[in-house]
């Protein structure tokens, strides 16, 4: 069975179904979808660290990388980055072959297209988590840790800032992620996010020092059909 099965089924809209009662063909295909995706995907990520400071006289104004690099006005981001001096800009993608595979399955059978799409969503999330884990492990050596991913479009962090990620991380060139006129990303399974870097004083023994809380449980939309089990 695929380690992602539960997530795939959740993104396919079956989060509330009892797994024992799910048609085995759906479960089989969820597993197969992950396998096929891993066969064709080209996951890539890129990062860059920028300084962050508040902008004097601008309520909830944040300045990244110094003058004339990137300014943002956002209350939720200001709260999220409270106490950080540095921020990690992060972008990741599964590559265009994944879009192609989803489209191909959708053209052949929409139920399979849906599950393929869900599997790709689960995979990009899992890939991002993996990247972040490694980045955090590196940062731990300097007694630093990463806050949860915060993407343009979360809270009042305007989605138009997607363009700044494209520009600052040179995404078309580095990982092949391009914007559409509507401000979306292609390939479709791509993520841009920033993560505050915070310091901790004492090194902890054990695996890894993290302050991550997963995003989904935090969301206020309690009736969401994609919500992770409560």
């Amino acid at each position: 069975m695929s380690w992602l099965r539960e997530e795939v089924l959740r993104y396919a809209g079956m989060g509330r179904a009892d797994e024992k009662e799910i048609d085995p063909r759906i479960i089989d295909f969820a597993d197969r979808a992950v396998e096929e995706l891993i066969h064709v995907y080209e996951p890539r990520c890129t990062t860059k660290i920028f300084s962050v400071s508040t902008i004097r006289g601008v309520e909830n104004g944040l300045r990244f990388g110094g003058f004339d690099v990137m300014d943002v006005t956002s209350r939720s981001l200001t709260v999220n980055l409270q106490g950080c001096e540095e921020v990690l800009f992060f972008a990741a993608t599964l590559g265009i072959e994944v879009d192609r595979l989803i489209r191909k399955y959708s053209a052949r059978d929409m139920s399979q297209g849906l599950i393929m799409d869900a599997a790709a969503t689960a995979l990009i999330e899992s890939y991002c988590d993996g990247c972040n884990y490694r980045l955090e492990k590196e940062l731990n050596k300097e007694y630093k840790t990463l806050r949860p991913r915060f993407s343009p479009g979360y809270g009042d962090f305007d989605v138009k800032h997607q363009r700044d990620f494209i520009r600052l991380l040179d995404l078309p060139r580095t990982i092949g992620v391009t914007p559409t006129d509507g401000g979306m990303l292609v390939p479709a399974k791509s993520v841009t996010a920033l993560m505050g870097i915070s310091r901790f004083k004492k090194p902890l023994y054990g695996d890894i020092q993290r302050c991550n809380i997963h995003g989904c449980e935090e969301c206020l939309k309690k009736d969401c059909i994609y919500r992770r089990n409560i």
Partner: protein
Amino acid sequence: MKYNILEELGKRMLFFDGGMGTMLQKKGVKPGEITEIWNITRPADVYDVHCEYLSAGADIIMANTFGANAIKLEGTGYTVDEIVKAGVANAQRAVLDVCGPDTDRKAWVAMDLAPTGKLLKPFGTMEFDAAYELYKEMVIAGADAGADIMMVETMGDTYEIKAAILAIKENCDLPVFATVTFDEKGKLLTGANVEAVVTMLEGLGADAIGINCGLGPVQMRPLVQQMLSLTSLPVIVNPNAGLPRQEGDKTVYDITPEQFADVMEEMAADGVWLMGGCCGTTPEYIRLIHDRCAGKRLKPITKKEITRVSSYSHAVNFEDGHVIIGERINPTGKSRFKQALRDGDIDYVLQEGFAQEDAGAKILDVNVGLPEIDEEQMLYRVMTELQAVIDLPLQIDTADINTMETALRYYNGKAMINSVNGKRESMDAIFPLVKKYGGVVVGLTLDEKGIPESAAGRLEIARKIVDAALYYGIKKEDIIIDVLCMTISSDHNSAQVTLDALELVKKELGVKTSLGVSNISFGLPARENINANFYTMALQRGLDAAIINPKSRAMMTSYYAYNALAGKDPNCSEYIANYADAQTAAPAAPAAGGESMSLEKAVERGMKEAAHAACTALIASEDPMEIINGRLIPVLDQVGKGFEAGTVFLPQLLMSAEAAKAAFAVIREEMLKTGGQQEDKGKIVIATVKGDIHDIGKNIVKVLLENYGYKIIDLGKDVAPETIVEAVVKEDVKLVGLSALMTTTVGAMEETIKSLAEVKPDCKVMVGGAVLTEQYADMIRADKYVRDAMASVHFAQEVLG
């Protein structure tokens, strides 16, 4: 004084410069800053970099015009013309100052053309023509400013490369160099491998090709060797200074100039003719490779003479064995296919593509000619849709020259062209297109006097075709001769003539051959018997490609069996893989359990094959309308209710929908046969709005609405308001479904609704998508917010009945 670079190519190793961005960063470029603007704001800094590279030994320096396109420069206050001309001028000034009129030294300025920064359709939102226009503007400015070379570099998408090269070739006479960026697996960002890139670039007439950026010389070398083994063109290598690593906010590269030069020296021995550096390399790197490689003798290029076509991802070559070309995408004699073309039902055409791919076709022939449809538009549509989901190269099959040109222009890769013949008129029309866009053309041995009855006569026409092609500058390997087969029912010798001609053409002209095999049996009963055996005979005579139906078991058996018998299938492994099950398979057994499943049960459980079988059984005895209204709709309603109640989940709903669709296909086929009419429930236009590329939701809605009998006009994704309005007006549509995923694209939805209300006030609009809510829908004046696919069915029933 000026000396064409092409004269110098091959005489000595030529050196490119190194990284420009790397050097400008040291001079204070900010993160995310558009460095091309420095051509005007800080020309001295750019000039300095050029001078340093020239002093280090560069023969070709690239003007700082990498991303100087209209999209990137938007809002900067500068025009493309200004930035490009200033960029070329800075480089020219450096050439003049360093290599001056007083020395013998020659150096060239290359205009640098990089990716647009947007992805082209079908996955991105940029039109091929829009990319072409961006490059055209740059090319005109660069040529006007006096650049010596047009250099397309760091490319990651074959389709974008094609737009750039056409823009160059159609707007100036300068030499074209093209380099692409591979990842370590040897793939471009959009999936092309080395052979696909080489095939397309040679077809488009590039003067030198190569690899740059992305990798260091160590990782690049195997790919360079591969490219050298495939191409007959000079090869360029411009690697990064190793692999990048992030140190704080700086990018650093992991190898030293010495290590860099070591590998470059090896690549010079491999056969590279032009070399330089990309990201992370500095004048030091260039100086060192110049020192080490300038005196080296170049390895001569051997002509490869391989017949190859390509798709966006891979090439198919005709040297490695017989190639099957699938013939099924063609309306001739197929009423269902004709109906699909008339309805614009591209999905149906795609299924034919999938089935042939599954059956073993390596190339798909595409013919959509039908008197009552606009062939040019339809072929463009079918071809681009096929290329979105099937990676096989295509054979463009049309008799209309405009349609042929359009298809070749927008094809992603190097296509196969069906066809030219020995008539002067045909050759004069087709060959210029082959020369311009690249392609492997099928030449039919007929001319003004018809089809010669003898093998020698057909050879003569083949010779005429090959000679004419050479005259047009087309290589011999880009011609495949089809000696034609006539039915044996009217001339019992015709198969022998064809086979003799086939052998003769191969021997005398040394070209590859192809045949449309099934003509041989026209007018005879049980045609497959004749076709399959004739196919084996032709294979035995060395037939290189055949246009056949790969879904025919008999034909494929000939193919696999021939390969096994002819020693072309080591260990018979392909044969075994395809036939190992054959001895155990019993004649078509009824569904498990001995009893066949009822149509309703099959749909409820979402079993496509069972639904198809049950419906096929029913249709003999039951009225089609009775099956729809008495069986299919009630069970669909029942599953839909379950979905709304939360007992049936979305994937199950869709499985039932797909099963019902399989049943409807049976009914439609039957109605075509009997001439019956399906009840007209009304048309619905659906689209994902402008700027939005997520169409899963829209596609789900489509499947469900179709099952309820509505005729869906699916305009796809990223659809402009005017396109939607046009379709609605033209077809007098009463209901439109719009989907948008993000807040940024809801604006486009609002605009669409507004335009619709002005032009067609009697048309209702339902909207859905992740960010939409009831309130949002009200705000943008939609008639209905549909929270899920079933809700869209209910609203359609409300509006259209």
